């Protein structure tokens, strides 16, 4: 009995350690093998405020015209869709949105997204899971004010996992 309890306890401990380690490792893997995207940010809803240690971000690809939608009926809230991105100039922009995962062509990247419940109803409003950027505590005010003209670099792994790797302001590039 004691023996079994010990085993269960350490299996539990191992699972938790593996979970945390695996979570981190998978994001390091995204860094290593992911494809880089450069995305333009866009104005966010006023309800999103600066939270002290992070800023909420929105992208041009967060609200897309319905003309890009390649499915039949319009998707419901929280439904998963697939966004095809292609590099145009120095940034990546959405070229199509599919209800099923499309084949990835040369020069294109497919991102998984979910239809969000807020935003302009005449647009296709999406969330990708990288709408938040953590900064050092209380250093985000400037970021907050200028976040509408920034470029966010995101890495996408072949298995769909994404991760923000950096944020730059457009003026600095010029």
């Amino acid at each position, binding site marked *: 009995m*004691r023996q079994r*309890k*010990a085993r*269960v*306890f350490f299996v*539990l*401990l191992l*699972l*938790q*350690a593996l*979970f*945390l*380690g695996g*979570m*981190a490792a998978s*994001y390091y893997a995204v860094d290593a093998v992911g494809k880089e995207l450069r995305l333009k940010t866009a104005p966010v809803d006023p309800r999103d405020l600066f939270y002290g*240690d*992070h800023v909420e971000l929105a992208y041009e690809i967060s609200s897309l015209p319905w003309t890009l939608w390649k499915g039949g009926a319009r998707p419901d809230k929280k439904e998963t869709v697939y966004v095809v991105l292609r590099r145009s100039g120095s940034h990546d922009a959405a070229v199509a949105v599919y209800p099923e995962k499309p084949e990835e062509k040369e020069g294109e990247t497919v991102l998984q997204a*979910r239809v969000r*419940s807020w935003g302009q109803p005449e647009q296709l409003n999406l*969330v990708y*899971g*990288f*709408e*938040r*950027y*953590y900064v*050092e*505590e209380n250093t985000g005010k400037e970021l907050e004010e200028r976040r509408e003209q920034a470029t966010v670099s995101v890495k996408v792994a072949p298995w769909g996992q994404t*991760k*923000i790797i950096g944020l730059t302001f457009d003026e600095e590039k010029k």
Partner: protein
Amino acid sequence: MSRKWVEEEGRHWVDRGIISEEQYGQIVALYPHKKIVSERLPIFAAILVGAGILTFIASNWSAIPQLIRLLMILFAMGGFYWFGYRKEKRGAQALGLSLIALGIITFGAGIFLIGQMFHLVAYDARAFIIWSLPAIALVWMYRSRWLYFLALFIVDAGQVYSAISFQQVSWLLLVLLLLGTGGYALRHSGRAVFASLVSSILLHSLLYLITESQAIGWLALIAAALYAALDWLPNRRTRMAGQLAALVSAFFLAVFFIFLLGEMDREPVPNPAVFLVLFAFTFALSFFGKRKHKETVALLEWFIFLPFFYWESAGDVMYLLVLFVFSGYLLWIGYREEGSGRVNAGTLLFLLSTFIGYIQVAWDFLPKSLFFLVGGLLLFALNWFLQRQRRKLLEGNGRGGGRT
């Protein structure tokens, strides 16, 4: 009874010649020194050390390289668990379990810190679900009340977070609440365990009704159903504790309706046919359960669940009446069974009912100065009445002990 009390009172008994010095020694020896200090000091020490480490890490967090942060989380978690495991095994129950609890907390902190490291955004309560899993497993393993409360807190916090941030209720968290912590409560019943479980289930139900824009009135039925199910629990003490939690929740629901029914008549009500059929069914369930335990007089408690919200024009007055009847009933039961817990709860709820009745009913036709004057006099009168009742109760017991 505490040793200190016995020591002090026993002195008087020796002085009066009721017991001899030798008997005094023997009686005092029956009450060993409680291990409070020796047990609690290491717990507080562990908490302080843990908090110290955590604040140190938190304030230097951004200066530490990511990989080191990750390792620190893993080592802290492993360390807490490992020492907790060893201490518990060697008999230092309280210290061991508090270290294990710190391990659980570190695991949760780890999930959120790693999320921050990689700029992750949550769009559901997933993090809380994962966090609660080891907590629930450890509750079952150690059968510890404190771990149970921690697990319950994680599940409840996750549900509140999900409701507030994403306007949805996580079904998985509800399942974990019912099967994980609820299953544990059923097997190792304790009073606080049951009361907190019933309150948590009602909290999750309330969040569901709000996020799905359903009629809040359904909550009365859910509370009644929980109450009725508890009637079939064999252990009397846990049954009473769980039911008291359901009753108090229904009490506050009634308060909510008193303020709401007059204000806005658009508040949706549950489908009457479905509600009443289910209500009758749960009442029957409760009736047969109570008959089994020969407690049919407690069916009076059902008064608080009655759905007066259907009665739009007079609903708030009826609910006010319900509050008075219910708190009066609690007082009556408390005096009859000499249970100080119910007497105190009854007194408190009675005062609250008076107050609510006063601001809700009297405000319109009384000038403001009279409001305070009559309100104060009402409370004085009530206090006088209750004190008299209490004295009678104590006199009925004979002069008990040195405490009054």
